[in-house]
């Protein structure tokens, strides 16, 4: 069990959680230095995302173009209409989508880890990825890969279906009372959906390329449409998760203890899982399977800034957004003008980065 470790605050080592919660006075979590740092990192990532790309737009002209977009400012960036289209309709929506996806995966990961008190819990724990993968594969083998909305909608449906199956299975078998049963149900459901997905994929082996490229993750090519499509469910999920910061801290002490503090553990767990799943499934639908973000970002934040969910959730969101935007910069520039699948980049860059964080903060962890 990792309960005590994950709830221990780095600022107050050895302090038990109820005390720690009280120790964070009402405004304490709004420590400016952290928020300034997180904002700078995110702003820097977004700027880099806007500046870097294989289309050969100069940094100066991109900056001028961005400044020129501010209300009341008139500057000539020198970009042609075509280059403006590249910046405004292809690159910027992709950067924004990357930020939304990264933030959602990271904050959902943090919530799942809190709900299940399992450091290895990631946003795909309950079968979202397998379900979405099956949905996307069905859409692709039926010829929908090139049509707008078809793959995202089926992926979204598949993801929700898998999580519903996991929850139903967990409830039937274990009464939904212990998180271990739900996690195990998720493993079983994911295995089952993956098996069906693999079967379909093999039956239609002429679609392999499209299926694989979805599986490896890609920030979509549908411009602002995808951003607009995922923003409502994702924003809702963020807002609801942030409202539950305090509840997650209480859950961290254990089911029995949380219940004695007046928390309806099973109900809260279901609520939180549904909220996190809504966010995850929405972003998976437009980005494919991007692994690792939901695990390393929350852990890195925990190690550096402490385990209190009041900090963990918003900081995970910010750093998750920055991380995925940067990973996408690598994905589209490392072998430019070709691309690497972003899911490969997040693991390839993320794993060593996480080890560095882990090493540097050995004492704190």
């Amino acid at each position, binding site marked *: 069990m990792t309960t005590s470790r994950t709830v221990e605050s780095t600022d107050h080592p050895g302090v038990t959680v109820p005390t720690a919660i009280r120790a964070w006075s009402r405004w304490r979590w709004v420590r400016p230095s952290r928020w300034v740092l997180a904002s700078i990192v995110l702003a820097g990532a977004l700027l880099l995302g806007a500046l870097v790309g294989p289309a050969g737009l100069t940094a100066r002209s991109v900056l001028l173009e961005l400044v020129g977009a501010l209300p009341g400012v008139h500057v000539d960036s020198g970009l042609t209409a075509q280059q403006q289209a590249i910046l405004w309709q292809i690159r910027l929506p992709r950067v924004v989508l990357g930020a939304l996806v990264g933030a959602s995966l990271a904050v959902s990961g943090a919530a799942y880890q809190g709900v299940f008190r399992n450091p*290895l819990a990631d946003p*795909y724990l309950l079968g979202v990825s397998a379900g979405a993968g099956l949905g996307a594969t069905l859409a692709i083998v039926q010829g929908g*890969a090139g049509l707008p909305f078809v793959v995202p909608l089926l992926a979204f449906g598949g993801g929700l279906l898998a999580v519903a199956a996991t929850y139903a299975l967990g409830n039937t078998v274990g009464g939904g009372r212990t998180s*271990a049963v739900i996690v195990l149900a998720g493993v079983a459901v994911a295995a089952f959906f993956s098996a069906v997905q693999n079967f379909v994929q093999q039956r239609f082996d002429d679609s392999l390329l499209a299926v694989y490229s979805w599986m*490896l993750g890609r920030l979509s090519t549908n411009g602002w449409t995808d951003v607009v499509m995922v923003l409502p469910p994702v924003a809702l999920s963020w807002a609801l998760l942030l409202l539950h910061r305090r509840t997650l801290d209480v859950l961290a002490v254990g089911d029995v203890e949380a219940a004695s503090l007046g928390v309806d553990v099973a109900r809260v767990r279901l609520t939180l899982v549904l909220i996190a799943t809504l966010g995850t499934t929405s972003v998976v639908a437009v980005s494919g399977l991007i692994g690792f973000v939901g695990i390393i970002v929350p852990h890195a934040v925990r190690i550096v800034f402490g385990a209190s969910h009041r900090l963990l959730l918003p900081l995970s969101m910010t750093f998750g957004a920055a991380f995925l935007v940067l990973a996408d910069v690598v994905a589209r520039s490392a072998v*430019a003008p*070709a691309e690497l699948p972003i899911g*490969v980049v997040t693991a390839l860059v993320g794993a060593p980065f996480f080890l560095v964080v882990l090493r540097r903060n050995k004492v704190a962890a």
Partner: protein
Amino acid sequence: MHHSSAPLSRRVWLGAVALLLALAGCTPMSAPAPAGTPANTAATTPAVSAAAFPVEVTSGAADSTTKVTIDKLPEAIVSLSPTATETLFAIGAGPQVKAVDDQSDYPAEAPRTDLSGFKPNVEAILAQSPDLVVTASKDADLVASLAKASVPTLVVPSAKTFEEAYGQIERIGAATGHTSEAATLISSMKQRIDAAVAKAPNLSGVTYFHELDPALYTVTGNTFIGAVYSLYGLTSIADATAAAGDDYPQLSEEYVVSANPDLILLADSQCCSVTPELVAQRPGWAGIRAVEQKQVIVLDEDIASRWGPRVADFVENLGEVVSTLELAKA
């Protein structure tokens, strides 16, 4: 509670496999669509030369040193490659073909079964009692397993050049007793291709984007399909990636737009429902020269992904298309 490590490692593993597949430049896909154009080769009475057997034929890539020995004239051929199936029928070996794989949709009279060329099932293949198996798969296990059952396997993997494609037609001809028909087919293909190229305008400097998949996988000039475009002097916008050794790269969308190709060829219309209208609606694509000038062409992706006899059809059709377009640059 560490139950969740399995799905993570599975995903990473899947990712690694798929990456390898992508890096290896897997063969472009073909869709199980109905056959387009009719067979070109006249159904001449095949003069099967049984006397030539046993024969030794090169198996594998063009530079392979592996030989396969075929003891007697094959009369129960199993083809696991759509390209090989087309060749077998074009050289008059059709009556000797017993079964073809699930993707072999041309010609219509080919005895299509649910055998998979992609994931060959040795027992299912042997159930057809073949005396020769023709496959494009380089799976060494398949060849070894069939050899244990004393079934010779002729491997004709995806060709990279016209010479390799012609070489494969020769090898299939030799292996099936149709050497002279194979030679006739090759010379007819060469004539048709030369004539088509001679008729077309000079298009050097004209660029194209050949879309294999809506995720913007494409081809460089180093591929077989690239060699077809090179006949007309067309240049792939992906040639910048050729140095990295990736001949089927996935391009960045903004690169495709900034490269501003003169011609877009859709090999993902049957598989993935992409149309010129949908291409024009993609954000930022309206200003691409090919889109502005309505030079977005839908290809028959079966013909465009195979390296068999119908390549001559493809070259001729492409020649007609490029001749009618406003492509020639000043």
